[in-house]
């Protein structure tokens, strides 16, 4: 047998050779002084490095008992779920691996903020007829979200189901289709795709369609009064709140997914769809009702202040930006868009580094985002086809 290389000898020391190899190595070592010498040298080296490196192990009092850690984990998850539920709005759940799940929050946020913004921001002045406000996404402005604050104030005081009833008129269907051509027939605008895909991602995207969703929420005055009283909240509610109906209409949309190689956490998604709209009856569109919604939302005060301070517009969508991320207005696709640069620096943030960009053109809302740098993303967004 030939002499053993350093790697085999090192594995021999750790008893990591397969049984057959181990026996052969032992037999060779028996009769080879040179290999025995090298083995001794490797053993001394292992000993020296191991002793020094052992200093890095957690010492006494430097690790929580697993049971304590599990309790902390449950709290963290509960807090995260609270944030997630808010962030997820009406967006279809997709199971495309963890990067998408992280980034989905951006798409979800869009749908959510349309709803939140519509409910809480729509000013009384911009009513359609004299009884209905319509909210539609045209422009985007950042609002800062601090997940740690969300954690502490995570529970909404009232569940919507305690104040009325959701009715799904048309349930959106989500499915994968063969290609862009197959998806084109599901929407009334021309679908677009990336001309050049950032390095490391599949050139051909997965294509997903979401059909139209139509949801209404009908207030029940008696139910709402009882639920508020149970919370110790005493407010004057207008009589015409009873039966007041909020309608959320989410037109058909298409999502393209450019994925990294298998096991990779990287990817890019491209959402395109006409703006969701929210119709709000006049009874709900009053400053008093807005204050009440804020009070019940469980949102942290800083966020409420930001939302209140936003322009009295029913076409500007507040885009949630995690604290620590940066956002700026950029020119994209020949119009103005909002670019958010995400760096996972905050504790409790499990989205990978990346960026996303949201803009509106010719009545279509585009959301492009993923695990690529802001400059790569802008380049991709400025070279769409057609």
């Amino acid at each position, binding site marked *: 047998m030939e002499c053993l*290389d*350093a*790697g*085999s*000898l*090192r*594995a*021999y020391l*750790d008893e*990591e050779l397969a049984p057959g190899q181990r026996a052969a190595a032992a037999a060779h070592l028996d009769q080879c002084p040179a290999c025995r010498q090298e083995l001794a040298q*490797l053993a001394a*080296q*292992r000993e*020296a*490095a*191991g002793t*020094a*490196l*052992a*200093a*890095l*192990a*957690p*010492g006494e009092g*430097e*690790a*929580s008992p*697993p*049971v304590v*850690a*599990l309790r*902390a*984990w449950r709290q*963290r*998850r509960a807090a*995260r779920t609270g944030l997630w539920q808010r962030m997820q709005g009406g967006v279809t759940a997709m*199971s495309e*691996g*963890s990067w998408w*799940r992280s980034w989905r929050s951006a798409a979800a946020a869009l749908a959510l903020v349309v709803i939140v913004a519509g409910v809480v921001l729509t000013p009384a002045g911009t009513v359609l007829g004299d009884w209905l406000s319509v909210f539609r996404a045209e422009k985007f402005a950042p609002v800062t979200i601090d997940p740690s604050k969300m954690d502490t104030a995570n529970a909404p005081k009232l569940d919507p189901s305690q104040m009325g009833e959701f009715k799904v008129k048309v349930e959106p269907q989500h499915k994968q289709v063969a290609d862009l051509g197959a998806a084109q027939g599901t929407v009334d605008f021309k679908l677009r795709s990336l001309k050049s895909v950032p390095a490391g991602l599949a050139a051909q995207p997965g294509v997903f369609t979401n059909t139209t969703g139509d949801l209404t929420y009908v207030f029940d005055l008696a139910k709402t009064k009882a639920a508020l009283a149970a919370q110790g909240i005493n407010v004057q509610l207008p009589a015409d709140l009873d039966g007041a109906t909020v309608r959320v209409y989410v037109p058909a949309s298409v999502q393209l997914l450019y994925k990294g190689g298998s096991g990779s*956490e990287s990817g890019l998604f491209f959402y395109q769809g006409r703006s969701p709209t929210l119709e709000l009856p006049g009874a709900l569109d009053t400053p008093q009702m807005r204050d009440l919604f804020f009070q019940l939302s469980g949102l942290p005060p800083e966020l409420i202040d930001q939302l209140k301070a936003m322009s009295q517009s029913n076409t500007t969508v507040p885009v949630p930006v995690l604290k620590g991320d940066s956002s700026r207005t950029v020119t994209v696709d020949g119009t103005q868009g909002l670019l958010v640069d995400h*760096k*996972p*620096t905050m*504790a*409790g943030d*499990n989205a*990978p*580094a990346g960026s996303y960009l949201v803009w509106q053109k010719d009545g279509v809302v585009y959301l492009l985002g993923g695990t690529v740098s802001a400059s790569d993303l802008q380049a991709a967004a400025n070279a769409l086809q057609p």
Partner: protein
Amino acid sequence: MEASLLLTPSDALLLEGLAKGDEASFDALFLRYYPRVYGVAFRFLGDRDEAEDVAQEVFLKLHGRHFRPREQQLAGWLYRVGLNLCRNRERGSSRRQRREETATTEARLLGQDLEPDPAGEAVRAEERALVRRALAELPERSRHILLLRQSGLSYAEVAAVMGIAPGSVGTLLARAEERFRERYLALSREED
């Protein structure tokens, strides 16, 4: 011994339970693997808060995954996710280094006042800082293999986490130890 083995559900069984939404299965996996994942993160980051944060995030990912790792891959998957989170933090963070340096200086200055074992704490902080400086001078792969191995991972687990062939672990490890020892001795001499 045998009875406890029989009573201990396998990873596969627990993963199956988790897929069905059984929280007790998740808890069992957490209790089984958390200390190991935390151990790796602590060695990488040298900071209790950050290491706990990373370990907690790893399990959030496990809990939320739709496509779960298979049994044989579970440990490797957990470590790999943990390692990636650690690397993200390592890059941006000089906080730890500053803290350790401060700790070292404080330990030197305050020597007697530190509890519960002032001399021991001071020595350990200095020793850790020295080991980290030596590691910082190694290529990333060498640094990773030393820390993973020191955390008690088998060759197969190290290979899975680092994406290398199991057969090359010995070679990389021998080279990393040699380099580390050399840098460590050189830095020790500078200190003296």
